[in-house]
């Protein structure tokens, strides 16, 4: 599931890069960077999980889980952070500042604190995309709003997974569904002509 989501993230990044090559607007470069990071993080996490499963959860490979999650967490943190900053600059509301400087530079386990940061960033992005939809009322903005809402919901489930382990597959499905909505938007954009 993570590789499918990563593939979609890379497709979005490619589309943003194509757009940047055409119009040279930095906002598309930030979008490209954001989705490259999301895709790369998911690939690393997927590989580390895959190796652990392939090694039949042998104790010697379990450290890969932490490394994979750490890389994915920081990739998502930077990716969503970039989107939040871009949205803040777009709306000119400089009142909201993201306190990222306090993050410890160390390996992190999947825990409530790390997921809470991602949920916080995704709440802001989802709210902004909801405003975008309320203004434009277009299907594409609705799909993007739905996608980020699903990603936010996925991270809420990842947050609760530390308490209720059975939620993990549902979180993965919600994350995949979010990226599938972005893929649907990408298809619509490319078939619009």
């Amino acid at each position, binding site marked *: 599931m993570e590789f499918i989501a990563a593939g979609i993230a890379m497709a979005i990044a490619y589309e943003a890069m194509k*757009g940047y*090559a055409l119009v040279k607007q930095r906002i598309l470069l930030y*979008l490209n960077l954001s989705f490259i990071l999301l895709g790369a993080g998911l690939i690393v996490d997927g590989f580390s999980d895959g190796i652990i499963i392939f090694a039949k959860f042998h104790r010697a490979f379990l450290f890969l889980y932490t490394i994979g999650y750490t890389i994915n967490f920081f990739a998502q943190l930077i990716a969503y952070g970039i989107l939040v900053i871009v949205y803040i600059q777009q709306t000119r509301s400089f009142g909201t500042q993201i306190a990222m400087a306090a993050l410890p530079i160390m390996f992190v386990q999947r825990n409530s604190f790390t997921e809470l940061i991602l949920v916080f960033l995704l709440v802001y992005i989802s709210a902004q995309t909801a405003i975008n939809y309320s203004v434009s009322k277009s299907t594409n903005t609705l799909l*993007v709003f739905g996608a980020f809402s699903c990603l936010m919901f996925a991270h809420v489930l990842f947050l609760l997974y530390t308490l209720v382990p059975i939620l993990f597959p549902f979180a993965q499905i919600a994350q995949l569904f979010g990226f599938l909505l972005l893929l649907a938007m990408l298809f619509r954009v490319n078939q619009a002509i």
Partner: protein
Amino acid sequence: MIETGVGTKPTTTKYRSQFRIYVDIMRVIQREGNETKPTRILYGANLSHDRLVKYLEELKALGVIQESIDEDKTYSLTQKGIEFLNDFRKVESFAGAFGFKL
């Protein structure tokens, strides 16, 4: 690709508006059946005469429009211009989905 300098200073409105004017001019030409007189572009793109002349020269230099002088001077999009507008529409739609205005 149209090199406009857009992106080198995205926070200034000068480059963005220049790019938007390019697109507006090209859209007016397309809307008018891909052959139109300068006066139609002038009103359609809401430009002064001096600025229109300047931008038309720049667009001609970029190879996205061409000028023909038969009885009247008219402008039309080149194949490169048509392709650029189609690609731009996709990029605009893509960026618009995220709420970004180009």
